[in-house]
């Protein structure tokens, strides 16, 4: 993206975003660290069977994944492919293996009688990787998707990264939010905002469920939120309408780096407030937004460069 434009034009200017090698490397390292808990098959040790087969488990028997030896094997495969992914070695193969592994693990977890969505955004980002590298194959840039010698040497960090792959991951994050927003409109028949006063019942429900998890006192912020929503229902509707807007129009953030950073921070703040009020973590959402949308290292460098330029102007003056 042309970053030379100044003033308001710089904010609305859109176009292909070019990423430096160092940004892509930091994204991969951070993503591997965040995604690891979802790929660690040892968390299946608590399960005895697949009481309610979900997704692929409806068609293929996945009970073999519950054997402890198998779980250790899957964990080793995941670690090896995370290392390949970070080193950028045969990235299409590495990401495909990680996606299949993560999907199988998620399927087993969701086959226990209750559907969880906690780590689903990690799968979405993995789909983004596979699609992105697939696009590179279609563009006859197979070496970038399948290269055995793709690991970054210090000199290569200054080169550009595969923008198609990064953009594909960013798109998939947007998809998760837009789909969630559309589901809210469909299921509530367009009355999601007007039913906001009932959210106090949900808050009380999650507060009490948090209590029955551990029998420790639940967070008091939920009590405060219940009182606020009951006292100021219109204000609550405006607040939640803003959240719905952030979800439904999340694709707007894809237009340029600035939009993505601002939108990403807004979504992270939305998740932080939900965590405070409803005790729902959104660990993966917060981190993936910070990694792929906000892209913290890039903005740190921009700020550092600005300070350097100002320093140079002051010295020359």
């Amino acid at each position, binding site marked *: 993206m042309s970053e030379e434009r100044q003033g308001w034009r710089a904010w609305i200017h859109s176009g292909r975003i070019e990423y430096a090698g160092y940004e892509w490397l930091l994204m991969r390292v951070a993503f591997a660290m965040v995604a690891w808990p979802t790929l660690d098959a040892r968390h299946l040790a608590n399960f*005895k069977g697949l009481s309610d087969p979900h997704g692929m488990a409806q068609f293929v028997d996945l009970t073999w994944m519950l054997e402890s030896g198998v779980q250790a094997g899957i964990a080793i495969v995941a670690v090896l492919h995370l290392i390949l992914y970070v080193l950028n070695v045969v990235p299409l193969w590495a990401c495909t293996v990680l996606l299949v592994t993560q999907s199988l693990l998620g399927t087993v977890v969701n086959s226990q009688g209750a559907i969880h969505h906690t780590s689903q955004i990690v799968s979405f980002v993995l789909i983004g990787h596979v699609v992105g590298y697939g696009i590179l194959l279609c563009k006859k840039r197979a070496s970038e998707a399948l290269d055995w010698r793709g690991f970054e040497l210090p000199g290569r960090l200054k080169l550009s990264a595969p923008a198609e792959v990064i953009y594909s991951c960013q798109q998939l994050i947007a998809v998760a939010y837009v*789909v969630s927003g559309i589901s809210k409109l469909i299921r509530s028949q367009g009355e999601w905002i007007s039913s906001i006063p009932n959210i106090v019942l949900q808050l009380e429900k999650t507060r009490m469920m948090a209590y029955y998890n551990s029998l420790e006192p639940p967070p008091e912020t939920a009590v405060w939120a219940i009182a606020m929503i009951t006292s100021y229902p219109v204000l609550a509707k405006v607040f939640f309408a803003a959240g719905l807007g952030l979800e439904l129009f999340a694709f707007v953030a894809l237009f340029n780096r600035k939009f993505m950073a601002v939108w990403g921070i807004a979504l992270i703040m939305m998740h932080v407030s939900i965590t405070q009020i409803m005790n729902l973590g959104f660990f993966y959402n917060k981190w993936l937004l910070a990694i792929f949308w906000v892209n913290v290292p890039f903005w740190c460098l921009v700020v550092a460069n600005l300070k350097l330029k100002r320093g140079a102007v002051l010295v020359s003056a």
Partner: protein
Amino acid sequence: MQNVRNLIARFPFKTGITVGFLCFVIVRHEPTRLGLGFGKDSVKEAEFYPLSSFPMYSKFSSNPIYVYLTDVNDDPIACHKRLGVLASELKKKYDKELRIVAKREGTTSISKLAPRLKAEAGMVTLRWLRKERATEAIAEQNIGPILLHEVILRRDEGNEITKAITLVGEL
């Protein structure tokens, strides 16, 4: 004009819309069924890991349910701390069983089901807890009979939250 073209080029036409559409596809086995979850009742069915319609908190019920466990002395059991099962997971399982019973009985209102029908769903949930989900934890701690309680939350005319508690199973 170039700006408009750039904006359109950045719109996620291909990957975004394709995956977004797939998120609403319903895939069911026995009987094999392929459909679209764009209806208010079907959107929740569009779940096929890794794809999902993300229907959580898509509707704020006026009478939501949660459940909790107690022992025979009516002392609450910390379901996650002691059994490794989240209260939300327990609630989802009970809710699912309630919906199966409600469908069989030809009704959609699960909160108005007769106590004996709720007890049927409650017993299935407790059997699942004892025989599949927390078998080892229950055996290790030598936990005796477990009671499952359902709580229905409502708002009264003064906007105060009321709770209707029902015992729905003991195993």
